[in-house]
């Protein structure tokens, strides 16, 4: 019976546990988004450098993170690298490393694309005014690029939030894992538990991601005027 099943959400400390799981999800996502964005902007900027070596290293880095699934990265670092170096890394730390590096790789491409889409003459106009190379970036190119890369960056952020659900595979207890644990324990008493628990998780992810896209829409609208 559906109407009796919903009580599984508030039974005991179930809701509290789900919230703690959500906190893990949000923590990993948020820290990775921040670190990934900072590193990604830096890499995106140096990718406009004319040096072939820098260009190659940046491209290699980007492709490596694009081609290899995030799950495999988590495994390589959590099981492989720790084993090889004979160290122990906490699952959450590994998740932060992998998600930050993945975010940075994708972010760098968004930044590069935004910078390249700006008219070439903007640089010359800035130089002709007596601005230095970096001042042109600071006052002219980056502010314009930020506006262009916002949709892509927000899209990446929501993708990162969603992809954190993979951390279960290296033993991190996130909101999905907590949900599974609660379902396993309650399923005999409440056969509809998985509907209600996963339903709540569905809503929770929506609550986390929706403000991001709402915020980006507002910013875009603001810059439009």
């Amino acid at each position, binding site marked *: 019976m559906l109407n009796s099943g919903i009580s599984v959400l508030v039974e005991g400390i179930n809701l509290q546990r789900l919230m703690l799981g959500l906190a893990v999800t949000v923590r990993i996502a948020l820290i990775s988004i921040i670190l990934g964005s900072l590193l990604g902007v830096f890499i995106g900027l140096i990718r406009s450098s004319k040096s072939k070596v820098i260009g190659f290293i940046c491209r290699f880095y980007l492709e490596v993170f694009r081609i290899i699934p995030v799950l495999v990265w988590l495994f390589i670092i959590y099981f492989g690298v720790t084993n090889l170096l004979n160290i122990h890394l906490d699952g959450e730390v590994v998740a932060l490393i992998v998600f930050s590096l993945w975010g940075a790789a994708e972010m760098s491409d968004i930044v590069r694309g935004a910078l390249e889409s700006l*008219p070439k*003459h*903007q640089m*010359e*106009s*800035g*130089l*002709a*005014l*007596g*601005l*230095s190379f970096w*001042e042109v970036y600071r*006052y*002219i190119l980056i*502010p*314009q690029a930020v*506006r262009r890369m916002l949709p892509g960056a927000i899209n990446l952020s929501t993708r990162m939030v969603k992809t954190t659900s993979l951390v279960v595979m290296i033993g991190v207890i996130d909101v999905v894992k907590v949900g599974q644990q609660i379902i396993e324990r309650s399923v005999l008493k409440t056969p509809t538990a998985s509907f209600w628990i996963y339903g709540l998780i569905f809503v929770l992810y929506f609550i986390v991601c929706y403000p991001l896209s709402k915020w980006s829409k507002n910013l875009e609208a603001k*810059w439009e005027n």
Partner: protein
Amino acid sequence: MTIAENQPVLLEIKELHKEYDGATVLDGIDLTVHKGEVVVVLGPSGCGKSTLLRCLNGLENVQGGSIHLAGQNLTDKTVDWKPVRQQVGMVFQNYDLFSHMTVLENVLLGPVKVQRRAKKEALEQAEQLLKRVGLYDRKDAYPRQLSGGQKQRIAIVRALCMNPQIMLFDEVTAALDPEMVREVLDVILGLAAQGMTMIIVTHEMGFAKAVADRIVFIDAGKICEVVTPDEFFTNPKTERAKQFLNIFQY
């Protein structure tokens, strides 16, 4: 003999040589510009007119010869372009206003961030210049809300607000709707009347005739003629200049 020739020399170009990947673009350009003089550079497409202007504020590097601006050698390897570019105002064909800034912000960027002038003083000058080109009421508009002619007039104001000693105009009306050419050329004529030193690259022959103290005709990277507009348009000396002028007469 123009009045300007009694004035001190502001810009002196000698034997200027410029190559792109081995192809010669400027082949021994000699040109002296006096303070307050308006020099119009004419010539067929690809003759090196724009490149010449771009060499004067360091957007292109040169392979030989010298450029002296107010006594400073700009072809010296150690030249610091930042102060030089504040002396040389340049307006481009594509009126590149900064799209994320309002008209006033565009105009004030150089004076405030480069020249470190007081905001209030720079703002006064900017507003005065905007009034002069008839765009004061558009000071808070963004570039996309302006017509091509308006954008180009703002680009001129942006360069003027740095108080340059010389202004370079690189085909500033070439990308404009014909109806908007006039409003931009009027601004430049106004500057000429005020004694601004200018080098103008243009394809507007009527305008060249009206504004120039001297016409410099360039072909294939070489100066063919340096004469008064009257002489150039009525009695060009070189065959190449005659051919060039014929194109503009139907």
